[in-house]
């Protein structure tokens, strides 16, 4: 076996230039696949990190039943409303740790002599813990009766900066629609989540937001549950309570964070596979290159093959010699390709640090395997041609 590969290596080194070019073809293909799948995997990790920074034991409930497309209640109205009483009723579900009844909308916030149109979230005291957001200064919306309005608000870092350019917003008033709200806190800066500037929002108590937007229903209920209970159990309990409250109808939609993550993950996997496959076209073309060169080299070495056969080498031995050559070509190309792909990843990371890239080790292993398989596939035809040569004819041809 070792003998076989040293023979193959000898043949490859004997034609350095053409071997190098054949390998280059495979290497480019492998590098393309490694780089593209790294980008896909990086994006997948990025998305799942964006999601799981809220914690993984979260359930979101939206009004309206999704049957076709999208999240109902996000767009337009419905008669199937979720109320604060619904949210309160869910407190008795075992394992539930935090509940935030949510109302959101757009509004113009005036303060410090300036104004800014932003997203306004109606939330309750548990929001920072549930969403894992940190308070910068001051206080968050205090605990209390969810149905009672209070004229306070907490600003996102950016709104605070934009409105109160050179002053402390705490204790000042902002005006939203016809209301004056006292600023009691400012959130810590957080940056973008899914392209949305999470610092450019304001938080008010849910009841206040409902008045502001003239709504009687919630846009969403977010629930965090203990890690010690089973998700399916919590989901079933929530559904039982809500369906009973809604007259036996399941007119709401429930999404667990885990489901969302796995759906996102599988979508990204498909995208990664598709892009990787397009990159893999290069690999196919590289394989055709190896096939061509091997075919030529069998033709050139007809005399040598004839001699080997005359000296007693069996057809299967000859087949193995040429297959070994093709595999070594593929493998060396694969090594070069992985190195090329990984160095591209390193370079891109250095130039564009924001671009998410991730190369799991199993991708690298897979790339090696693919290059070997490519070598095998490309080698079959030429190796069979060599193995089937008639020794007498072969020797004569070289004469």
């Amino acid at each position: 076996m070792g003998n076989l590969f040293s023979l193959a290596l000898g043949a490859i080194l004997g034609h350095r230039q053409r071997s190098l070019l054949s390998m280059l073809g495979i290497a480019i293909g492998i590098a393309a696949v490694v780089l593209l799948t790294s980008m896909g995997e990086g994006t997948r990790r990025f998305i799942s990190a964006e999601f799981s920074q809220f914690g993984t034991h979260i359930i979101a409930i939206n009004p309206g039943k999704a049957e076709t497309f999208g999240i109902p209640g996000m767009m337009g109205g419905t008669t199937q409303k979720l109320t604060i009483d619904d949210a309160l009723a869910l407190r008795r579900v075992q394992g539930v740790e935090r509940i935030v009844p949510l109302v959101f909308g757009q509004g113009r916030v005036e303060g410090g002599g300036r104004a800014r149109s932003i997203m306004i979230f109606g939330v309750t005291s548990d929001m920072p813990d549930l969403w894992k957001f940190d308070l910068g200064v001051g206080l968050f919306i205090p605990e209390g009766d969810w149905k009672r309005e209070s004229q306070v608000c907490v600003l996102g870092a950016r709104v605070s900066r934009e409105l109160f350019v050179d002053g402390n917003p705490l204790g000042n008033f902002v005006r939203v629609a016809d209301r004056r709200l006292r600023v009691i806190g400012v959130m810590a800066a957080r940056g973008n989540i899914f392209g949305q500037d999470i610092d450019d929002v304001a938080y008010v108590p849910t009841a206040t937001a409902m008045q502001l937007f003239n709504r009687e229903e919630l846009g969403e209920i977010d629930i965090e549950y203990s890690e010690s209970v089973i998700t399916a159990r919590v989901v079933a309990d929530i559904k039982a309570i809500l369906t009973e409250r809604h007259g036996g109808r399941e007119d709401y939609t429930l999404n667990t964070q885990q489901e969302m993550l796995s759906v996102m993950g599988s979508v990204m996997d498909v995208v990664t596979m598709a892009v990787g496959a397009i990159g893999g076209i290069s690999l196919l073309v590289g394989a055709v290159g190896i096939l061509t060169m091997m075919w030529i080299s069998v033709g050139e070495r007809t005399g040598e093959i004839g001699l080997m056969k005359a000296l007693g080498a069996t057809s299967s031995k000859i087949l193995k010699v040429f297959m070994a050559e093709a595999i070594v070509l593929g493998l060396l190309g694969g090594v070069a390709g992985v190195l090329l792909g990984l160095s591209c990843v390193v370079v891109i990371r250095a130039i564009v640090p924001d671009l998410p890239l991730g190369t799991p080790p199993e991708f690298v292993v897979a790339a090696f395997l693919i290059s070997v398989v490519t070598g095998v596939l490309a080698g079959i035809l030429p190796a069979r041609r060599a193995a089937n040569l008639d020794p007498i004819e072969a020797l004569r041809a070289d004469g």
Partner: protein
Amino acid sequence: MRSADKWRFALNALLHNRLRTGLCLLGISIGVTAVVLLTGLGEGARRYVGAQFQSLGTNLVFIFPGHADTEGAMPGLGGAPNDLSLQDARALQREVRQLKTVVPISLGSETVANRERSKQVYVLGTTPQFIEARGLRLSSGVNLPELDWERGQPVIVLGGELARELFPGGEVAVGNTVRVGDRRVRVIGVMEDRGTQVGLDTGLMGLIPVASAMSMYNESGLFRILVEIGAQTDTDRTVARMREVLMERHGEEDFTCKTQESVAGSLSTIMRVLTLALAGIASVSLAVAGIGIMNVMLVSVSERRSEVGLLRALGAGHAQVRGIFLAEAALISAAGGVIGLAIAIVASLVLRSFYPAFDATPPWWSVLAALGVSTGVGLLFGVMPANKASRLDPVVALRS
């Protein structure tokens, strides 16, 4: 040596080694097929999206409640303290003369049921003009009645698919009563299926008078106002005028105007960038094919040393020898390009016969680019072997 002779010489050399020529052709044509087919698919998707916007009718402007200074924020999500009201829509109609139609829309997702059959769909509260403005048509029955906007009526126009689901087996929907949420309404019309229009499945929706929807959803504001501008008018000026009217009524810009063109335009740009990215990835395979051609040409140069030596001895110059080998490289890559192109076009035609709505015909620029690039690849990777051949010493070459 005449030019025609040079090409014939190159052609003969290629035909002599059919198998390796065939494999080189295969490599380059795989690359060209991939590039052309992918650009065709990408462009097809772009045109498809464009056509979807066209099918909405032309010269539409959407007005949403709410206005965000944040980049990337989506207007129209959730609530807004100042609604867009029916009076706003009315004012636009009254004060901006260039408007062809003003359609108020109240949107909700609601269960529509015929006895035990039910379906959760979007139910739009709107006016009879909606159907025309969105380029829809009725297949049976009548449109929503021309009512005072503030007055409701218990009637509904169903989407085609929704009608078939609620009334299966050819049962006639028009004239029957269905439940929308808790209310009973009479079906007065059924629409033709027009497929999905920009995220809204027109087959699975219902239309009711706008006042009925607003009272049912208990909303004082509209989801959006759809405005159709006359074909001959200046869109920008008209939008500016509409903004003025609404600003005057609201005292601030707490709404967002989006023209159909701007939405369609940005989508189209995104799709084109994606197409180019995919084509770029696929064209890596063209480079790999070029390397393959170079490799084979290098081999054939060393195989044909004596032939080259003879040519040189007979008086062929460096340039002529180089020309012959470049011609060989150009021929093989151009032929590969043509074959690849043919495969791609056939594939797109096959695709089209399966999905007539999706036109994946490669755009002319991708056809030209594919042929140009493939020939260019051949010439580029042919330079090294051709130089190698032209530098052969005739005496040494002949002796070998």
